[in-house]
Structures are given as C-alpha cells and as structure tokens.
C-alpha cells in the first residue's frame, strides 16, 4: 500500500463566514495523479491553497505527508498559472527554475553548483534546456508553464499541486507537460492537478475529484466523470454538452 501524500477529511473552508467548500473528502497516494475537476468558482484553487496551508480550514483536517500542511511545505511544490505572472519581469528562465532551490539554500547562502545542476536537469526534463538564458516573459504561455513545472521539479517535492496547468497551452507544451507529469508519477511523486479539461483528466490522471463547492464524486476517473455526476456538478447546460460529445 503506497503512502498517502495528501489526505483531506470532511474539510470545510469559509471566507468571511461563508463556506466556499463544504465537506470535502479525498486523498492522493504516492505515485498517483488526481484531477480536481469543477467549473470556474467551484473552489479548486481554494482547495489547493488549503492543502498548502495558506487558507485556514473551518472544520475537518488536511494532512500532507502525515503532517499539518504548513509543516510540509518543504516537500510540496506548487505550480501557479503562468499567465498570472508579470511577463515583463527581468528574470531569465534559468533563474526562475533555480528558485525551486531557494528554500533549501536558505537566506544568506548562494545556490551552489549542485543546486544549479539540479535546476538545469529539471529544465531539461521539460524540454527547454536550450532556452535557459532567455527572459521568462519572452517564452510562449505553454513554455512558461513548463518552466514553472521545472521549478517545482527542482524543489524535489513528494507532492505536486498544479493550478490549471493546461490553460491556454499549445499542443507541443501540453504533450511536454503530460510527459513530465507521467515521469514524476513513475518516480513516486503524488500529483494533484486542477483542470476543467475532462479529456486531459482522462489522459493524465488515475483518479478524479469532482467539485462544485461540495464534492460530487471521488474515485477512478472513469467512474467519476460520468454524464450523471457531471450534470450534478456543472448544472444542466454543461452536463448535456458532455453527454452529447
């Protein structure tokens, strides 16, 4: 039985007294990829933030690698959406990936040769070794997303949390992201991916958590992403669309 990397038990999260997530259960095992599926505003990002210990849970518990989320950050990597970052920021691709080493390096030391090699390897794994010296903002959206995944890999995490990594990503970068995530999974990392792309969930993930404020299903992708459950989570319009497809 593989280790449980992320365990979510009856979790409710509230903003200003109003619950945005209610009674969520689920888990991500080591070596497993779980899709977090739901419409915009379903609370996918909130659940990821809760798993990072950045949003307090009103009730229930979240355990990351057997610890409270805030104590596990060293072993957890978060991949934000690339388009939330300032494309004008004066920073090279290599520097962004090296950030994955910063917390291990500490405040006063400079990243050493070993850190640089780990970062270079991570960039190579997402297929962008030749762009190391380019400014981050000059890359395409999909390439930027791959750079952020490389930064997460450089952190050598046991749990990866990806927030909508496939949004606005071209086919080449999508394949590269899927390949890299597959490789991480084989190495035993646990991966949680929020997405509203159902076909990608089928392609990349073992399990799915169907979410819209509350949980509409959790389990193997094929059992959860059914027309009935999607209809319940998304409402009539989207459910009918999926059923017809």
């Amino acid at each position, binding site marked *: 039985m593989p280790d449980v990397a992320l365990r979510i038990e009856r979790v409710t999260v509230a903003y*200003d007294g109003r619950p945005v997530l209610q009674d969520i259960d689920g888990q991500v095992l080591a070596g497993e990829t779980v899709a977090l599926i739901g419409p915009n505003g379903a609370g996918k990002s909130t659940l990821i933030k809760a798993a*990072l210990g*950045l949003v307090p849970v009103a009730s229930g518990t979240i355990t990351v690698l057997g610890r409270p989320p805030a104590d596990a*950050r*060293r072993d*957890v990597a*978060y991949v*934000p959406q690339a388009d*939330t*970052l*300032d494309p*004008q*920021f*004066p*920073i*090279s691709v290599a*520097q*962004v990936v090296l*950030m994955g080493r*910063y*917390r291990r*390096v500490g*405040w*006063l030391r400079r990243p050493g040769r070993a850190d640089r090699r780990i970062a270079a390897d991570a960039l190579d794994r997402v297929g962008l070794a030749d762009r190391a010296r380019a*400014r981050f903002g000059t890359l395409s959206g999909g390439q930027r997303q791959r750079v*952020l995944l490389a*930064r997460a890999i450089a*952190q050598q995490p046991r749990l990866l*949390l990806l927030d909508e990594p496939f949004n606005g990503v071209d086919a080449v970068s999508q394949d590269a992201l899927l390949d890299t995530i597959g490789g991480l999974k084989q190495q035993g990392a646990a991966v949680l991916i929020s997405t509203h792309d159902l076909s990608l969930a089928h392609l990349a993930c073992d399990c799915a958590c169907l979410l819209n404020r509350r949980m509409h299903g959790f389990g193997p992708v094929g059992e959860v992403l059914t027309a009935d459950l999607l209809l319940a989570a998304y409402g009539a319009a989207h459910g009918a669309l999926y059923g017809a497809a």
Partner: protein
Amino acid sequence: MPWLDVAFHRALIEAVLVGAAAGLLGVQVVLRRLSFFTMAMTHATFPGVVVAAVVGVNLYLGGAGAGLLAALAVVALSRRRGHDPSTATAVALAAAFALGVALLSAQAGFTKDLTAYLTGSILTVTRQDLGVAAAVTAAVALVLAAGHKALTYTAFDHAGARAAGYRTAAIDLGVLLLIAVVVATAVPAVGTILTLALVAAPAGAARLWTDRIGTMTALAVAVAVTSAVTGLLLSRAWDVAAGGAISLTAAAVFAVSLLLARRRY
C-alpha cells in the same frame, strides 16, 4: 579648513549617499510597481517632518515615523477585500500633504520655509545628516543583499513564494518600511516630494537597458548617484535650486532612456 567644513563638499557627499540608497531601493520599487505608493509615502512624510520641526524633535524621526504610519495604513487598507487601495492611498496622500501645509502655516513666525522640506536644501546638510545618510545607505545595501533571493521570489511570484513558505506579508511590509526610511533620509537632500524622482527614475531608466536584475541594480545606483552629483553641480553653475536640478537630471535620464532603449516594461 577641513574638507568637510565646506558646505558644498558636504552636499557632494550627501548627494552620493542619498543617490546610492535611492538607486538601490528604486529597483525594488520598480519591480514591485510601487512607484505610486512611494509617491504617497513622500507626501505622508511631509507632515511628519513639519511636526518634528515645530515640536523640536529630530526631523528624520518625524519623517520616518509618519512614513511608517502611512505604510501600515496602506497595508491595512489593501488587505480589505473588494476595495481599490489606490483611491484610499490617493486621498491619504492629499490629506497628509494638506496637514503639513496647515501645520506649517499655523506656526506664526516660523523661520524655516516650506520649500526646504518639500524640495530639500542640500547645501545646509550637517555632518550629522551625512552620518545618518551613510548608515541608512549601508543598511539598505545589507538588507537588499541578504534578502535578494526572497525579494526576487516574492516580487516575481507572490503566490508561489507564499506556497514555498516565505512570509510574504512580512517581506512586503519590510520593503514598505525601507521605502519610508529612505524617503525620510533623503529629505535634507531633495525634500519629501522630489525624493520620488531619485527613487523611481534611475531604476526605471535602468530597467529599460537590461533584463538582468544585477545589472539593473548597478545601473540604477550609477544613474542615481550621477544625477544627484550632476544636479548639484548644475544648481551651482546656474544658480537654481539643487533639489529641482537633481530631480530634473534624473527625470531627463529616464526620458532619454525611454526614447533610446529598445525595451519596454
């Protein structure tokens, strides 16, 4: 006569020190898009300096104290969800400035005039001013060097930095406090209002010439120090106010960079 007894020599040293501190910090201001906030900070510093002068306490303490209060107020305002902090900042900016003007005008027979606080009087700086400027410049350099990884990470990717375990709120506040301290330090040289030119213009110009933060920092310091010294020399040659000449020089470098450099931000 010792070299430092000459007012113009002291002014030169002050220009170099304040230029270096403003150039260093300006990089953070530009990267974090805090130019408007810094503008508010310069205005908030003004009543602090006036109160300190009227009550008779140290001008730096008064200015920095008011700046710190303004920084905390802006942080508190921006933390409230659903409110645009720029409106509140703009109102606070005008109110603080008005308070300074009112306080100063109520002080009948007060000898120091308004412009000294607003635009500086670098030719009257004392050895003590130089000591403060040297200490602050060294402290700013030290903090930026020690924190450069955390500062870069949080400026580039705030959410990612939080997720990585950085105390982003503390780091943000630290940057704001550093701005308050540098603005207060620059008051004797360029006054409360014109400090912005020495903070934002050199770093803004430097950003146009390079995509590397290290190079940008070196360029910003070089431009700020050169602008301060050149402005001082021009003010003597043409007999114009030093604060104005320094700010105009920095602004001119920025304008020329905008025209000539390929990069945009």
